[in-house]
């Protein structure tokens, strides 16, 4: 009995560890897609893109931690996001110039809105699928 209990605890902790590892890298693919999207929108050259990419990925990492840290206070969170963007805009300027450094955040928002749109579409499709199933069963 005790052995089974230990095995269960061990398996449970292992699954937790694997979930934690998955969570660490969650959204990684979309972060890369976002970088690619912004680079295309800004029309960066190869050398510009090579310099821009690591800085932008750092920005996204900082954005994630800022959001986690100040989740409780919306106003502070907004302020911190603005601070973060100003700080990173200064880092983007020497790589891609001033005007394009400002445009980075507009394209970032565009991408997020597209992602939201995609998620909403998927949810809607799922709901429609369920409704169709139900109506099919009733008939």
């Amino acid at each position, binding site marked *: 009995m005790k052995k089974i209990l230990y095995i269960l605890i061990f398996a449970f902790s292992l699954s937790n560890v694997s979930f934690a590892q998955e969570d660490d890298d969650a959204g990684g693919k*979309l*972060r890369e897609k976002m970088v690619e999207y912004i680079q295309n929108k800004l029309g960066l050259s190869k050398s510009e893109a090579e310099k821009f990419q690591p800085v932008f990925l750092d920005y996204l990492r900082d*954005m994630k931690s800022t959001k986690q840290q100040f989740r409780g206070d919306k106003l502070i969170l907004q302020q911190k996001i603005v601070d973060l963007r100003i700080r990173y805009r200064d880092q983007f300027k020497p790589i891609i110039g001033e005007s394009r450094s400002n445009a980075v955040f507009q394209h970032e928002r565009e991408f997020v809105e597209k992602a939201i749109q995609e998620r909403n579409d998927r949810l809607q499709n799922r709901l429609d699928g369920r409704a169709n199933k139900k109506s099919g069963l009733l008939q």
Partner: protein
Amino acid sequence: MNTGNNIQDELNELNSGLNPNSNNTPYSVPEGYFDGLAASVLAKVKGEAPVSASEEIAQLSPLLAGISRKLPYSVPDNFFQSNIENSEAFTSENEESLVLSFISKEMPYKVPTGYFANFPETVVEKLSDRGTKVVPMVKRKWMRLAIAATVTGIMAISGFFYFNNRGANTTTDPVTAVKKASTEELNDFIKSTVVNVTGNNVPVTAKNTTETKKLFNDVSDKELDAFLSQMPTDNEDIDIN
């Protein structure tokens, strides 16, 4: 030409500190050593003049011969004899040892009378009497009651919140609330709130949707949710356009 002289000359030219007379051997044989050598060896072989060990050592090594032959440590007189007498209990020839005589000869364990004779019957009897053993998950009655009470409590509380929220959702549904609100209330709300009426959101067109679909084609729902949770939402983000 003598090579020894050459070396000597060369060493002299170089002002070397090495001995120029290196041809001379540094050791010498005592005088008349070889004269009597053959006779003395033959005498030793033939044993004509028997030599004692001490004399031989004295001849070979005067140092060894000079060392005293007395042992630096000594055993007291009758040391072993007295020890044997003192430990008579262990060395007695009598079979009855003094040590063993202190130990009781009674067996500490006993087998009940007729134990082995009736053993099979008792085992069979016990096995037939015994039904399937019931192992309770929780031995104590109060613990069972506590678990039942906890489960009931959790179900009641979660049920309460679930149904309460459902009720609340129906009453505070924003769409219903807006529909129910009067024009005056809506105007007041619009005046008191900063509303983005410029329509900066990306308009949903057919091309846009296709592009979006293509963009997120290989992205799972889980990844999409995780990514969006890391990015600022509409409420958290300020208008930068």
